[in-house]
Every structure is written in C-alpha cells, then in structure tokens.
C-alpha cells in the first residue's frame, strides 16, 4: 500500500510525515466525489466535495463570523473555564479523603449530564448568546478532565511519594512538584479529548437557541433549507479548527510531558 510505503520511508522527512494523512484524505475525497457524481446521490443528501469547496470559497465572510461566534467565543472560553474547574475540583477531591469518597461518586452522576438536557436549560439561564454555549462546553469538558486528573494524581509511584515525605513537604509542595507533573500525561489525555468535545458542545448548543450567527445556527438552518453545501462548508471549518486545536494541545503536551515514555519513544 502506498501509505505504508511512504510511512516506511519517512523516518526522517517531516514533509512525508504530513504526506501520509494528506494522501489518505485525498483518496477519501476522491472516492466521495466519484460516489456522489457517479451514483447520482441527490445533492440535498450529500453534496460533492467540489460543490462544498465552491461554496466555501464564496462564503468566507459568513464562515468567519460564525467561527468567531462559536469557536472563539463559545468553545474556547468554555474550554478554559471547564478544564480549569475540573482540575481544581480534582485537586479538591484529592486534597480531602472525605471529598474523595463524597464528591467523586456524586461527580460521576453530575458530570455526565447529557447535552440535550442541559442545553435548553442553560440557554434559559444564560441567554441566547455565546455565554450559554460556553456554559454547555463547561459541562461537557468537565468530566473527561476530572476523571483523567483524578486518575493522574494517583500516578506518582511509591518511592517518588516517599521522597516528598522525607522532606516533610506540605501538601501543596508535593502537589506542585510531584503529583501534578506525574499527572500531566493523564491530564493531557483529558485536555485532548476535550478539544473536540468543546467544539461539538458549542455547535450543538446552538441548535437549542442562538443569535442568528454561529456554526451550529448555520448548520441547522441550512439543513432545513437544504443548503447542504453550506452545511459541509461549516463542517469543514469545524474539522479544521478542531484539528488545529487538538494539534496545538498535543504540541503543548509534547513539551510538558517530554519525559514520559510515550513521548520519549518517538522523535
């Protein structure tokens, strides 16, 4: 297979590292185009990539406005607040055995609230603009980050902890100098999963009421209007923004957890 051939050769080349997914993607797009035009799929069901590209090119200003509304205002702010709150909660839980036993089981209940249920409520509470979307994102990203952080805070090994004991380090010193660094591989798992959740959350929340801009608004409106090319243009923006966001967090992860075997093994 072509992809594996390239992969074999690409131990050094950074360009080739990128080439594999690109080629894979182009193949996928080509198959899609062929399937749509060849098999005559109605364009109100699935438009051809070429049509999507054309629509994308002519609608950049709308796409930009939607992107700012949904991604920059809704998703990013919610992501920051949600992840921050989750990490702080995890630390609080960790700080007190009482809360570990009390808050964590309850956290399991509260944090897995389905978006469909909370979105209308949060729109009711926080209004139609991006604040309610950010609130939905907060709820969505909270749980993955919480679970991973709690798990991560248990990851320091016995000898590493004993060392802190011998220094009679305070709880916070041990946390900052040992537990959090050791938890980073886990925390970043949560942060990475949350990047895509944040985007989904911000978009889906707009289905439940929004001003007349935003990616979710545009998608649901255009589905109703059968403007499927616009829907897919928005989805493309979502995919690009989401991947870039994920990529950014991965790069940070690589710098922060360079010492972890999963990172040291490569590059």
């Amino acid at each position, binding site marked *: 297979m072509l992809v594996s051939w390239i992969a074999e050769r690409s131990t050094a080349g950074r360009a080739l590292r990128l080439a594999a997914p690109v080629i894979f993607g182009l193949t996928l797009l080509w198959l899609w185009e062929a399937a749509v035009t060849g098999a005559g799929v*109605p364009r*109100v069901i699935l438009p051809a990539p070429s049509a999507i590209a054309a629509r994308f090119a002519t609608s950049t200003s709308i796409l930009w406005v939607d992107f700012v509304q949904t991604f920059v205002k809704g998703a990013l702010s919610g992501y920051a607040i949600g992840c921050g709150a989750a990490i702080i909660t995890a630390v609080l839980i960790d700080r007190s055995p009482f809360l570990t036993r009390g808050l964590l089981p309850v956290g399991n209940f509260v944090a897995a609230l389905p978006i469909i249920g909370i979105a*209308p409520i949060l729109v009711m509470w926080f209004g139609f603009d991006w604040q309610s979307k950010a609130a939905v994102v907060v709820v969505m990203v909270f749980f993955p980050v919480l679970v991973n952080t709690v798990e991560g805070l248990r990851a320091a090994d016995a000898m590493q902890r004993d060392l802190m004991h011998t220094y009679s380090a305070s709880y916070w010193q041990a946390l900052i100098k040992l537990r959090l660094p050791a938890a980073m591989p886990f925390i970043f798992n949560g942060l990475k999963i949350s990047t895509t959740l944040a985007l989904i959350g911000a978009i889906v929340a707009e289905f439940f009421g*929004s001003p007349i801009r935003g990616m979710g608004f545009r998608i649901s409106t255009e589905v109703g*209007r*059968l403007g499927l090319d616009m829907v897919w243009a928005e989805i493309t923006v979502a995919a690009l923004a989401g991947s870039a966001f994920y990529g950014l967090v991965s790069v940070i992860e690589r710098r922060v957890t360079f010492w972890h075997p999963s990172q040291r093994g490569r590059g």
Partner: protein
Amino acid sequence: ADDFTLQLKWVTQAQFAGYYVALENGFYEEEDLNVTIKPGGPDIAPPQVIAGGGADAIVEWMPAALAAREAGLPLVNVAQPFKSSGMMLTCLRESGITSPDDFPGRTLGVWFFGNEYPFLSWMSTLGIPTDGSEGGVTVLKQGFNVDPLLQRQADCISTMTYNEYWQVIDAGISEDDLITFKYEDQGVATLEDGLYVLEDRLGDAEFEDRLVRFVRASMRGWKWAEENPEEAAMIVLDYDDTGAQTEGHQIRMMTEVAKLTAGSNGALDVEDYERTVATLLGGGSDPVISAEPEGAYTLAITDAALAD
C-alpha cells in the same frame, strides 16, 4: 395491502391528528393501504427524508417546499388539508409593542430550520432589516419552547395558534398581558401543512393510485377529527411514544387545528397558492424564492380522491 410512508414535520401531536385518526380508525386499511407514520423532530428535514427515499409523502409548509424546489428538489403539492395559517407573533404587552411599526429595535424570536421564510418575507414586506443593521430587529433563533418570552429574553416570539400560544397562557400569563400579530391578519399568510411528493414519481400510475387512496383516507381522517376533537386527541396521545403529551393540551390543540382545517376538503385552493407565492416573491431585496415556480402543485390527485 400497499405500503405507504408519511414523514411528519414535527413530533406526534394533534397538528397531525387526521393521519393518526385515519390509521387508528382503519380508513387506510379500507383503502388497502399499510401506512407508516414517521414523527419528525427538531433536526429532521422532511424534504431531505423524501429525497433519501425515506418516505413516499411528507407534510411540509409551502414556503419551505417552494424553496426546496428552487434548490433543486422538485416537490409537488398534492393536497392541502390546512386552509389557513396558524402562525403568529406573540408579544408581551408590557414591552409596549402595539403594532408592527414598533418592531424596529426589538428582539424577536423566530423558528429557523426552514420555518423562517414566512417571517422573513413579512419583515421584508414591512421593510424592516433582519440582519442586525441599523433600524432593524434583532432576531433570535428560538428554541423549541416559549421560554424566551417568559424569561423576557425576547420581546416577541413566534407561536402557533394551536400550540405555543397556549403554553404561554398555561405558564400563567393572561391573554390580556399579551398582544398577538397573526400572519393571516397581516396579509402575509402562507400555506402550512400540505402533502408533498417528488415530481418524478407522479408519472407512475401505480404510485398515483396509492397516493389518491392515501389522500382520500387522510381527508376522511381529518374530517372525523374535526368533528370529534376529544376522541382524536386521545388517539394522538395513544400514538405518542414519548408519553410526554398531556390530554388537556392535545384536546385544545385539536380544537384550534380544526379551525385551520375547517375550510379545506383537501384540494389546494389555487388562489391561496398564488397569494403564498406572491408573498414569497414580493417585498424587499431578499425574496424567499426568486422566480415564479412551475408545476409546484397538481390538483389531479385530489380531483381523483374527492371524485366519489
């Protein structure tokens, strides 16, 4: 029996009572039809379902159907059980709105997902911009319920005479505290719940025959429902799988819906059609449809169905 699938525009409720009555009372069976009714929902676009082959006919509003036609999906109206429009804009009296002239600067709740066309053409008839520019209205994409009005996040919201309006009332706001603008009264009414099929299937005699039988039975259902609103509402309740509908609300909805279907025997009134088209074409810079549609309806089916 021949299979026939109908895609509704919204969830199971008395708005679609005629079809459920026909099913429950065996009217379809008598026409040798085996009918499946698919409920809709907030993200089900009936035109998309029919394009994908998921239904034989759909219930849709005419503005959306005509827009879909322009977008390349040739929908044809084959019957029009709803004579008049139930759409209105409901405002809180305390907001100080007394006439459409007061709209500029206000926040209005609107349904999108293809339901925004009547509103947009009304506004463009009034010459009020909706894109957030100076002297226009602020438009909110309204969710599924009347909360924006109750929470005072909007000055006015879209309501149907048979549904949301009563929810506002039920919430404890008296009729005196509300002021309503019916699309009918504003002269911008567009046709609602009609039956649409794909144009290319109409040539097929077998399909047309099935369709005729379906329309005939459905209209029987509608007329029965008009006469027996309480029983009809109970039938709807039986078909509601979510179990969320309440008896009182559905009976009242049926009563209100009956007022809208009253003037129709199922056949499309061409005058209504032309008024709808004129509304959609007319007014402003951004009409819903840009050209007079061709072949967007046929009377052949109702003629055959109602012949005997």
